[in-house]
């Protein structure tokens, strides 16, 4: 048995041991609590919203390129708007969204209802969370707000 064969068998054994370890590891480690269901639903919600906004994007493009009549565009656009709003509401009401974000949106809505003309509620350009005009940073994601003088 020459050196090459020995090395081959050695590396082969290492590979076999490594594979065996990798395969058995999952049986031995502690399992994390199943958050899969929640993750999947949240991902599906976001997918639904992404699809709607992607569709609006395409709709805009086709309208600008002169392929649709004004009425057709309006009909579809309004339908998408309502669809998006419905998904958002369902998400909020079912409590499926990010709790912190949900809390902030509820504040936004409450503020929006009572907002006077001076006290404007804006949206963060990065994450769309509620920002009062005058806030220096977004309370949710921390992006600096451009100050309007």
């Amino acid at each position, binding site marked *: 048995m020459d050196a090459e064969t020995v090395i081959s068998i050695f590396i082969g054994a290492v*590979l076999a041991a490594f594979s065996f370890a990798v*395969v058995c590891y999952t049986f031995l480690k502690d*399992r994390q609590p199943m958050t899969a269901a929640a993750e999947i639903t949240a991902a599906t919600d976001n997918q639904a919203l992404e699809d709607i906004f992607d569709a609006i994007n395409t709709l805009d493009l*086709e309208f600008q390129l002169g392929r649709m009549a004004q009425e057709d565009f309006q009909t579809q656009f309004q339908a998408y708007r309502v669809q998006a709003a419905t998904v958002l509401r369902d998400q909020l009401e079912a409590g499926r969204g*990010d709790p912190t974000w949900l809390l902030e949106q509820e504040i936004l809505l409450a503020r929006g209802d009572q907002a006077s003309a001076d006290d404007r509620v804006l949206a963060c350009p990065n994450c769309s969370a509620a920002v009062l005009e005058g806030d220096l940073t977004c309370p949710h994601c921390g992006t600096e707000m451009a100050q309007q003088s």
Partner: protein
Amino acid sequence: MADLGAISLWIALALATYSTIGSVAGKLRMSPALVDSAQSAMYAAGPALLVATLSLVVAFISRDFEIAYVAAHSDLAMPNKFTWVAFYAGNEGSLLYIATVLSIMSAIAIWRAPEKLKDALPYTTAVLMLTLTFFLAVTAVMANPFDKLPFVPIDGEGINPLLTHFGMFFHPPALMAGLIGITVPFAFATGALLSGKTGDEWVDAGRVWGIFSWVLLAAGLLLGSWWAYTILGWGGFWFWDPVENAAFMPWLGITAFVHSIMVQKRRGMFRMWNIVLINVSFGLALYGMFMNRGGSVPSVHSFGSSQLGWIFLMFMAIGVVVPFLIFIWRYPLLKSAQNLDSMLSREAAFLVNNMLLLAIAFVTLWGTVYPLISRLTNDEEITIARPFYDQVNGPLMLALVFLMGVGPLIPWRKAGIASLRKSLLPPITGGLLTVGVLATLGLHKEYALIGFGLSAFVTTGILMEWYRGTRSRHRSSGENYATAFLRLIMANRPRYGGYIVHLSVVMVTLGIVGTSFFSVQKDVVLAPGESVQVEDYELVYLGTQEEFKGNRTEFIATVQVLRDGERLETIRTKRDFYPSFNMAATTAAIRSTPVEDLYIVPSENLPDGSVGFRILVNPLIWWMWVAGPVMLVGTVVALWPQKIRVPAPVPSPRRIATGLRPSAD
């Protein structure tokens, strides 16, 4: 190194088998640990196969002739760089290559699979690993690259000379990767069906991997054509060879798939059809790989081993029947989310596109198997070659080019007649004007006129779209035209990537029409000093140099090219004769311009120094090769991930589970 290679091959086989069984068992018995373990086994198969691949490479470089495969495909005289091609020169090596590619693609596909597919992943893994198990089992048991010879030969048999040319470094790997790559979208679709996810969850993954395997196959086909053109020496680039057809058909299927998957993504329609389509494409891909292993029809390509052919045929039968059964089982659940609003809509156009592509595939399949049918039924030997395909597939392809021009101009859901007419006016004008101008200039071949007219039609349509979109964006955002154009592309990547790819298809059309209808061929024998006139080129044959190089004799002929008395270029073309293979490989001299190629290749070297030359003037073929890079650019743009911003950030599991406020980073 043979032992290490063999050991790692068997380890990979064990891992793949375990992964297949474990995924299914774990899912059925609802044991997440088993499912995860099976997934880990899949990840481990990749490194194992890389070790095997490396072992074979080392064996080649060290010329370990004890290994039968190394002895059969290399020799002492072979330069090391040819190890790359020698690797897949034969069945054993190419099977190992395919398995390695599949294991890597599977790992990436599962790793990057979207969250919403989590329930389906074990089944997807099982499908991928079942395919891998098959390939590894065949490799390890029937075509093991690490089998040893009972003695150590002094020298190997050397590598097939045809493989030592540049195109061969890329054409087979790309093609084989493309064929096996179709397994990935197929696995996502089947996995989704098996786990009851009959909606649109698998569409994003299916689209991305569908496009990826599409571009690999397209690159493989174009590279093969380019190689045939420059090396094989008869001036053509596609032969409707049964093995070429076998790679062409899955490409047609996957082209249809990447189009109709857009309909499912946008409207949730064609759910049933897309499953059928990806199943058909996968079946055709298996057929393609079967044809390469010694199919029943003789060809320049087949690796020849009939036993492997039967095994592949069996796997192909399973790979077609079982998915079909799964489809029937889940059929009641596969309902579209929405209906068609109008027959004049992009959805309908995509369906017509699909039908045309499948019609071309059907014709190709028919042409490939008809000789067999004829032999079996009325005992008559019939050949089906280029003239048949030209007459039957030609019109279909022209119809497809037409659709390629019209389709992008039709909006989703419903096209208003008035706005459609407005959109179509410039392209139709462009097409008709082109036909008019060409006819006036003297061009009268009908098909060529139609081909050029349609090319102009499509190009005008695409450029018009770009112009309108840019102008509209420029007006509303104030950006200058250049910025507006770039931003327009980046904001609609799938669409504009598609436009670029369509442009590349127009370029291929130009090349095919130009060469098919207008190429001029002259076969002539020239003594040194003699000249010949072809079109407006004068070619003076100066003489041949004979160079003896190890395993071959090179006959290098020098030719001067003149036009209108003015010397353009002095070119060299050579013919290499390999006595041990009794084969000659030629390298054509090609003077290539966008207008036409001047193509010279020697067909025989006579003892008195005269050379038989084949001279071709091929108009427009340059466009076909340029189409390759353009297609790649278009694909990159189309696949570039585009994050759609929504009014809600993606909740992270940590946040959901613990309700913690995220830090501002």
